[in-house]
C-alpha cells in the first residue's frame, strides 16, 4: 500500500503527489495512492506523522532519517543527494523505496 499523509498547512503535498505519480508511472506501476489528511496534533501523534508530506510504502517511510522526528503539524525537511534541503523527497528516495 502506498500512503501519502499530508497537512493542509504545508503547500508541498501536491508536488510530492505529482512526483510520486511520475515515479510510479516510470516504474510501470499503477498502485493507488491513499491520501490521508492529518488535521490535529492528536492525529499527528496517533499516526506518528513527522511532517508533511510523509510517504509510506507498505508502512515503511521513504525517508528513514526523518521518520522518527517528533510528530507535529509541520512541513517536513528532506535532504537531496547533493545536500540541498527540500520540502519533498527526492526522486531517488522514491525509486529506492518502490523497488
Amino acid at each position, binding site marked *: 500500500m502506498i500512503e501519502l499523509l499530508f497537512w493542509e*498547512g*504545508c*503547500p*508541498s503535498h501536491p508536488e510530492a503527489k505529482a512526483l510520486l505519480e511520475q515515479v510510479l508511472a516510470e516504474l510501470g506501476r499503477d498502485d493507488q495512492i491513499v491520501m490521508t489528511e492529518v488535521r490535529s*496534533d492528536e492525529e499527528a501523534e496517533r499516526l506518528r506523522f513527522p511532517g508533511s508530506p510523509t510517504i509510506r510504502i507498505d508502512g515503511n517511510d521513504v525517508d528513514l532519517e526523518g521518520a522518527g522526528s517528533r510528530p*507535529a*503539524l*509541520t*512541513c*517536513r*525537511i*528532506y535532504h537531496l543527494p547533493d545536500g*540541498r*534541503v*527540500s*520540502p519533498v523527497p527526492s526522486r531517488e528516495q522514491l525509486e529506492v523505496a518502490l523497488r
Partner: protein
Amino acid sequence: MSIDLGSEAPFFALPGVDGNDHSLDEYSDAKLLVVVQYCNHCPYVLAWEGRLMAVARDYAQQGVRVVAVNSNDVSHYPEDSFEQMKARAAKLGLPFDYLFDESQSLAHALGAERTPEVFLFDEGRRLRYHGAIDDSRDETTANRDYLRGAIDALLAGEEPPVAETESVGCTVKWKS
C-alpha cells in the same frame, strides 16, 4: 492579509540573535530595507536561505539591509526558539540581522502569512515589493529573481518590474 503596496513600514523593536535590540529607526540610513518573515524549521526557508544570504552580501555595499524576523509560536515549534535562532545564525554566519518577534506583533502588522515572505521597503520606507525571493524553491530551476529585480530597479530609481508575487512556504505559526 498583507499590507498593501505603498504602505509604510510598521515600527518594530525586537531582540536580535546578536544580543542587541533592533528597531526600525536603526535602519534609517539604509537605502532599501528588506524585511523577511523567517524561521528555522521550515524547509522552504532552508531551500531559499542561501539565495537570501547572497542577496544580503551582494547588496550590502549599496545600502541595502536585510532583516529576518521569526514570529512563530515556539511552544508548538521549539526549533524556532530564540536559543535555536541564535544557534542557527552562529552556525551559518547569517549576514543579516535575525530578530525574534515573540509577541507576533510585527507579523500581524505586516499581515505576513508565510515563511519565507519578503517585504521590500524603499528609502521612504514604503512597501515596493512583496512576495517570493524568486520563482522556485529549487535553485536549479529558478529563473526569475523577483527580489533582486526589485532591488536593482529601486536602486536605479525605477519601478520594480514585478511588485507582488505569491509567497510559497510554510504558514506563520500563530499563537492560539
